[in-house]
């Protein structure tokens, strides 16, 4: 109950954090796509697209 009350008080902060996380996750998704695209244009294999004869190292 106390915890719930506290979270009401800082609703603004929670919203702020939610926004920061959303921004961060969107940026991460963008990065991952950019790296995958760059590797593909260089003819490298991309994580998650493993070929059977050669397994790419998991970083």
């Amino acid at each position, binding site marked *: 109950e106390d915890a719930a009350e506290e979270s009401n008080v800082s609703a603004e902060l*929670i919203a702020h*954090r*939610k926004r*920061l*996380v959303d921004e*961060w*996750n969107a*940026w*991460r*998704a963008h*990065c*991952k796509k*950019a*790296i995958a695209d*760059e590797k593909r244009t*260089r003819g490298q294999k991309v994580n998650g697209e493993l070929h059977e004869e050669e397994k790419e*190292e998991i*970083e």
Partner: protein
Amino acid sequence: MRPILLQGHERSLTQIKFNNEGDLLFSCSKDHIINVWFSHNGERLGTYDGHNGTVWTIDVDSQSKYLISGSADNTLRLWSVSTGKCLFTWEFPTAVKRVHFSDDDEQVVCITEQRMGHQGAIRVFKINRDGDGTNQSPDPLHMFHPIGSKATVCAFSYTPNIIITGHESGKVALFDVSTGNEILNNERAHMDVVTDMQLSVDASYFITSSKDKTARLHDTKTLKVLKTFPTETPLNSAALSPTRPYVLLGGGQEAMQVTTTSLRQGKFETRFWHKVFEEEVGRVKGHFGPINTIAVHPAGTCYASGGEDGFVRVHHFDDTYYRAKPYGDLEIDD
């Protein structure tokens, strides 16, 4: 979270590194010795003996086959991880301050110091992985002298031939090693010496620590500062924690300056900050002097710190650390 104390160095630690699996921890020191330890119990597995000066820097390849080290004895050395044998030695006019293996283990980049008529240089060596490892080319694949402020730290980016550097002035930059050209820089990334740089798993962002008392996250592509972690003490090291959204910062005022500064600055704690919220979440005490180097286990299950006091402390996280959700259920991408 009872720490394991690794006693085996007689002088201050300069860098520590986990191998890819995280079962081994490598440490180097001003006592000229490199040690390797089992990370789970702190037992010493062996030493790499041969340098005749402070060992400033080490790195281990992804297969835990080769170790590379750079020293104040002006040499870069390649070692066999399993036998402890020095396989090859490169000699330079000045000390080697930083080394880094490329992702594919094929190359090593190193920084040599600017001193007494010698320019600071960045060299990239091709590592011949055929045979027993002793057949290396003495000549670098690439070499250049970064103009302006001298480089203090470096690492390969995810783009071939592009390295990331941190500088004495606080600058971070991207260099094309094949031409020596600075492709991009952020002159004001920090206001003082960049002391450490560690990359995210995919190298798309990295963290730097600085004597300006802050650590920062940077976007590798644009060098834009993403996050800032301000502390009250000069920082020597900053590490990213995989699997948890934290960064770990270490530093502390030099002993000779403690009396001239406020009490808090002299505290030698590893500080945990939330990577996204830029809020401090906790501190871990232990060292009797500044923390010089921090490394996090690749699986995020433990971390180690190396101090000016000559000790390495390994902290295995307990259940409460994993269960703790101080900020609720928000899912944060690594």
